[in-house]
């Protein structure tokens, strides 16, 4: 790398927490600055637009409820993704794993006939296992046959999507739903409690917090966590250390897929109370969670903060659509920009750039 000689560029061994924080926040601000162009292009003052988004997402109990509602699946999926990414497994399939969780939970809710609280517990277990199995397929294909994880996880998203569509149009189509592609409503015992009249289904939120803490401990304090990190950071060394790549890959995808499955259970049991169109069950949570996990620098605890932030952005998408009458896809533009600025800024963390003193 060539640079003017008054600039000093050194490689940093490890960036400090403060550096990471400052660089990350600057990256987001830079992305929002670029995104401001779009508002300006539509003749909306960017400052007013951001003010509306913040007010819409946090300024009322309804807005706050919408923010937290979106934070829940992002938190669960994001925590799982930090674990997968640490083992250098590119799980781009959280979206499909959410849907599989939703399918399993709906199946239990509609057909298991379990009494009372047992029903919800069974739904969560079924949802976790369904999401986990959907995650184990690409894990096994990568560990055994060397198949590219990005592609297999992505393809399975589409398969899961059409599976849901098939179920709601075909065998599970509700008797009471006439022309609509829904299943019947879940029985009351299969509906999650919410805080007051909001749509915050708190049991799923609690699960998310617990998952963040447990995964933080697993990754940082246990032997499995150590093995995950070695496989991710130095696959060569892991082979010499006798760490099983197969087991580690399967473990991280069991967790990552399972947590996404939980998110799917939360959406159908906490919000919609039935299985419905896949684009409604997950509004791109699985993809946004990738940025959530990346922004958290693969730290499960930090996902609590980053998922909240993206909850605000997603709830802000409603404001953009309803109050400003702008296309909601602007949120995807935001997401893409934030992601670019985030990874682009990583160079700043790997190198220390300072002005040379004489």
């Amino acid at each position, binding site marked *: *790398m060539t640079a003017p000689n008054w600039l000093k560029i050194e490689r940093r061994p490890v960036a400090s927490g403060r550096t990471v924080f400052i660089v990350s926040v600057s990256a987001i601000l830079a992305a929002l600055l670029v995104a401001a162009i*779009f508002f300006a292009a539509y003749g909306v003052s960017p400052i007013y637009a951001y003010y509306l988004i913040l007010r819409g997402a946090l300024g009322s109990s309804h807005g706050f409820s919408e923010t937290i509602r979106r934070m829940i699946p992002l938190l669960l999926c994001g925590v799982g993704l930090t674990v997968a990414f640490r083992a250098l497994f*590119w799980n*781009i399939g959280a979206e499909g794993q959410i849907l599989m969780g939703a399918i399993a939970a709906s199946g239990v809710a509609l057909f298991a006939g379990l009494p009372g609280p047992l029903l919800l517990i069974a739904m969560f277990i079924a949802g976790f296992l369904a999401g986990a199995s959907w995650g184990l397929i690409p894990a096994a*294909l990568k560990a055994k*046959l*060397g*198949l*590219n994880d*990005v*592609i*297999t996880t*992505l*393809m*399975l998203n*589409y*398969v899961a*999507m*059409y*599976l849901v*569509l*098939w179920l709601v*149009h*075909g065998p599970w189509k509700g008797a009471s739903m006439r022309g609509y592609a829904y299943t019947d409503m879940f029985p009351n015992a299969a509906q999650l409690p919410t805080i007051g009249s909001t749509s915050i289904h708190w049991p799923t939120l609690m699960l998310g917090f617990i998952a963040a803490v447990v995964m933080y401990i697993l990754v940082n304090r246990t032997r499995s966590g150590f093995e995950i990190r070695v496989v991710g950071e130095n696959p060569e060394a892991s082979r010499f250390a006798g760490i099983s790549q197969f087991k580690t890959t399967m473990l991280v995808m069991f967790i990552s897929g399972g947590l996404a499955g939980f998110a799917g259970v939360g959406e159908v049991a906490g919000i919609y109370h039935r299985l419905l169109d896949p684009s409604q069950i997950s509004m791109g949570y699985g*993809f946004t969670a*990738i940025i959530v996990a*990346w922004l958290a620098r693969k730290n499960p605890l930090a996902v609590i903060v980053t998922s909240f932030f993206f909850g605000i952005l997603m709830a802000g998408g409603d404001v953009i659509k309803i109050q400003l009458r*702008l*296309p909601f*896809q*602007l*949120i*995807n*533009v*935001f*997401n*893409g*920009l934030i*992601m*670019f600025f985030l*990874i*682009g800024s*990583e*160079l700043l963390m790997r190198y220390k750039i300072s002005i040379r003193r004489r």
Partner: protein
Amino acid sequence: MGWETWIIATLSRTLAYGTPLLIATLGEIFAERAGVLNLGVEGMMIMGAYSGFVIAYTTGHPWLGLLVAGVVGAVFSIIHAFVSVTLKANQVVSGLALTMLGLGLAGVLGRGWEGLPLFTPIRKITVPVLSNIPVLGPILFKGQNLVVYLTMLLVPVLWYVLFRTRVGISIRAVGESPATADSLGINVTRVRYLCVIFGGFLAGAAGGYLSVAYRPSWTQGMTGGMGWIVIALTIFAFWNPIYGLLGSYLFAALYHLSFRLQAWVSPELLKAMPYLFAILVLIFVAQGTLKKKMGAPAALSVPYTRGEE
């Protein structure tokens, strides 16, 4: 329907649907051969589809639309080149970001253009004399458009460039061992930029083909995951344009055959088929003995910094 008509219809559609897959796959082969994985194909394609349609609709010139679609794809891919080659950031994440940005941007800009019919698409043509050849004639020379033939021509050309010219040697050297290429005086950064941009051009043009020729109209998400299938096809093709052609047409044929099962299987499940095929195809490749002989470019998705190996 007689079996002859049936085969002709299937194969003829295979060529039409396989063409955009092939165009984009050829581009991704070049990017990856130079060592840059670009997962932004879906994003570049949709941007190409959108801009191609808008230009064709407003000017009435579909070929200009196709060209602009390619240019937009190329410009878009520069972002990925800058982030992954110059800033040496993670290529998987950068490519995903490009796809998100493309889908978002096309969604935002494309509002209001949806559902408009394109009165001046790239026309289907019938080649005189040749179309009278039994079986082969109606498949190859009837009801296809010029892009289909141009794409077929592009395949041997790109194969020749990649494997028989100095340019091709440079590209492959950069993808296999950038340090060696660098020591031989090849500008690694420039080669990688150019290959990514070339890939972007073809991905954009593939999107443009969809909106000005294959289905002359613009709809949100009209690429429907084709960009991801292209990534899979690139692996299936062993990074070779000739196998890229075989893979794209084979995939397109399977895609159309699966719709012939409509009488027995529900349409939703049939739509899941191509994605399952993509996985099956990769499993098939992984088990083949060819894998050891023709693996991925050794430096694929590894950023290059001089003096750090």
